[in-house]
């Protein structure tokens, strides 16, 4: 089912973040919303994911299961990379599968390391694997490649594309390269309002 956002409005302490925001995303489509920092992209993802409430408008066609790569890694620091990766995964995904996914993004020797001992780039990759393993129908990506070097960006984008063929993906970024790596249809923030 397509996701249809109509006349969405959000205010913060009497300041309008955005209003009359309209967007339609087809099933399994991958789109990238590009805009300046602070324009409200993250807020939009939070509303779609149900973490924040809109002050107006409506969203139709949202699937039950949504996955999210936040702008920050938001890992459970004391737990291993493997435990973190499996956090949102269903019961059918065991240690071996999760390990294979971590290896795929280049974390071969770090699966049993605790998150607090991983580097920034490693943490980023674990948070991406966690979101992918959730096997949701909608994947929200908030600047997912932040902190990754060139090689890892390409590797991780291939990993996401390979594992989200049937998934609707909404990426928000201010970096055109990020959007292009995921071969997503680019939509400018200004065109949504």
């Amino acid at each position, binding site marked *: 089912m397509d996701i249809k956002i109509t006349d969405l409005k959000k205010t913060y302490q009497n300041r309008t973040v955005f209003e009359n925001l309209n967007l339609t995303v087809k099933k399994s489509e991958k789109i990238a919303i590009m805009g300046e920092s602070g324009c409200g992209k993250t807020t939009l993802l939070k509303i779609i*994911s*149900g*973490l924040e409430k809109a002050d107006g408008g409506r969203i139709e066609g949202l699937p039950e*299961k*949504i*996955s*999210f790569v*936040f702008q*920050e890694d*938001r890992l*459970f*620091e*004391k*737990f*291993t990379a493997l*435990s973190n990766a499996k*956090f*949102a995964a269903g019961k059918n995904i065991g240690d071996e599968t999760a390990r294979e996914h971590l290896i795929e993004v280049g974390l071969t020797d770090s699966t049993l390391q*605790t998150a607090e001992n991983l580097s920034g780039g490693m943490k980023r990759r674990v948070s991406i694997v*966690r979101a992918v393993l*959730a096997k949701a129908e909608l994947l929200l990506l908030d600047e997912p490649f932040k902190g990754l070097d060139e090689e890892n960006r390409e590797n991780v984008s291939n990993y996401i594309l390979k594992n989200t063929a049937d998934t609707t993906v909404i990426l928000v970024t201010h970096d055109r390269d990020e959007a292009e790596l995921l071969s997503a249809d680019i939509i400018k923030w200004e065109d949504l309002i």
Partner: protein
Amino acid sequence: MARNKLLKFGAVLLALLFWQLLAVIIGNSIVIVGPLDVTKQLIKDIVTPVFWGSILFSFLRIFAGFSVAVILGIVLASLSYAYKPMRTLLWPYIAIIKSTPVASSVILMLIIFSSKNLSAFVTFLIVLPVIYSNVLQGLTSTDEKLIEVAKVFGAGFIKRIKFIYLPQLEPYILSATSASIGMAWKAGTAAEVIGIPKGSIGERLYEAKIYLMTSEVFAWTAVIILASVLFEKIFIWALKFFYKRLWRS
């Protein structure tokens, strides 16, 4: 690290030496006895069944009071965190328990109950507010961003407890229990000295005071300190062991 330990050991030796010197200078075994006399007294007591019976009597009650306070403190703090009105509702009780002098609690308990389990009640009253306040503080400072992760991915109750709240509470529970174990032994035995339950450490201390057996007072004080430190070490070790297992799970 080794140097630091050596320095600490040296400081303890120096303190013992100073204590012995003070005892020799004062030269009155009713006012003060030195560490050598205390050790002699302990060696004499340690072989008697009364000695171990008293320790067991007090330990069981202090442990019971402490355990109930820890469990109830965590439960009440969790309820207060989940439902704000509960926090307001509990506030006067916690404030009263926190500020009531031990002596008043003991007298009230003696009026209502027998002196037998007095130390358990008093320990409970001393430990409960410490655990409650610390756990509540830990819960209220939980990282909202991690709670959002749990919400988005639809994590259930057990998963949230395991991944978010237990790790968050680790330093708070460790410091609260570490601080309250010492307080539990101090207050528990103080209550026993007032209530004089038969067969307790408090009774031994009371008798030592009545018969001016200062070396007994010192020996039992040493026993209380040792028991408290040992209890604390074992409890903290068990807590850390639990957390180590949790991180690996």
